[in-house]
């Protein structure tokens, strides 16, 4: 699990829990099967879902504060499939095709397995079947949620409010890593195409990376001087370090101005834009803060290595 999922999603889930929500982490094993994750091998997919549970627990979302539901838990109920079919009957084939970027598929893709068309309909039916008030996801899932809102009105289900989080950019910066077009809006399209992806390990930080690995990856990250936006190192401060620690400590030697602490991202942004902070000092401080935030995850997997080891074995053989 990379820090985009573990810490950007993770800290938003913590916000929801603190705000008094009942929070469901839905492990979409059937959807993963449709999307051919792990070659569609359900045993590996479930092992991965189990590993996710351990990661979230390690990140500070204890199992008694959140409810885990697997897609497998829903599919035995015929009334679930009734909802899937109602959604499918209520939406045009065009609309479903346009929603396929939620699976990481090109908008124009037509050489798909027919099962792919079930995916958006199931994602909407999941929301109705679990009776959720708020559907939460990265902005790349927007099309599924808009389909859910329209379908709810048409079919008489509870219409979910939606909260969409930013996508954490990969460490190599704003460049297209995934082939294809994912959104009509060029800026959203670039965000989806640049997001951190576990399939490019040098561009991703994993929640269980050790401090040495973290700092060597951050050292290689795209981080142009004086440019705070579309800068993945600054994005880590904004989306992870500030929410988790409530502050950002810039560590640097006296001859370069000495240490500084920031309590608002906007202040850091101003200083960075003005060239008052050198990218290397920023990077070293980000590595230190990330290592600190991720320390509990490392110690969790040190005393409980089996789920991570199993996951690594599956990753190697796939």
């Amino acid at each position, binding site marked *: 699990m990379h820090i985009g999922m573990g810490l950007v999603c993770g800290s938003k889930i913590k916000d929801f829990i*603190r705000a008094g929500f009942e929070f469901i982490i839905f492990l979409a094993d059937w959807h993963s099967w449709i999307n051919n994750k792990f070659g569609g091998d359900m045993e590996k997919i479930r092992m991965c879902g189990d590993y996710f549970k351990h990661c979230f627990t390690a990140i500070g979302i204890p199992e008694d504060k959140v409810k885990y539901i697997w897609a497998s838990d829903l599919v035995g109920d015929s009334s679930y499939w009734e909802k899937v079919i109602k959604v499918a009957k209520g939406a045009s084939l065009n609309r479903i095709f346009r929603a396929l970027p939620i699976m990481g598929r090109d908008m124009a893709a037509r050489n798909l397995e027919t099962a792919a068309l079930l995916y958006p309909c199931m994602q909407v039916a999941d929301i109705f079947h679990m009776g*959720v*008030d*708020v559907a939460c996801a990265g902005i790349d899932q927007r099309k599924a949620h808009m389909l859910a809102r329209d379908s709810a009105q048409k079919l008489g289900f509870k219409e979910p409010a939606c909260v969409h989080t930013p996508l954490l950019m990969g460490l190599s910066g704003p460049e297209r890593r995934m082939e294809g077009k994912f959104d009509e809006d060029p800026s959203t399209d670039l965000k989806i195409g640049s997001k951190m992806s*576990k399939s490019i390990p040098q561009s991703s930080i994993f929640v269980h990376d050790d401090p040495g690995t973290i700092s060597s990856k951050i050292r290689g990250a795209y981080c142009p001087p004086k440019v705070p936006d579309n800068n993945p190192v600054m994005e880590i401060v904004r989306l992870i370090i500030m929410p988790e620690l409530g502050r950002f400590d810039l560590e640097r030697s006296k001859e370069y101005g000495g240490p500084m602490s920031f309590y608002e991202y906007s202040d850091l942004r101003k200083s960075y834009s003005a060239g008052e902070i050198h990218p290397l000092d920023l990077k070293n401080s980000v590595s230190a803060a990330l290592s600190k935030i991720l320390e509990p995850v490392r110690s969790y997997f040190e005393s409980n290595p089996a789920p991570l080891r199993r996951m690594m074995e599956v990753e190697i053989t796939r």
Partner: protein
Amino acid sequence: MDLEERLSLIRRNVEEVVTEEELRALLETNERPKAYWGFECSG
């Protein structure tokens, strides 16, 4: 935690809320609403 604190927690750092009014109305009327996040299991 009062309503405004709950709202600002949910809203911080998000790209968008659809819609702000619906979220506010939900929190005004429901002490324990239900939210979800779905994840594909893909490592």
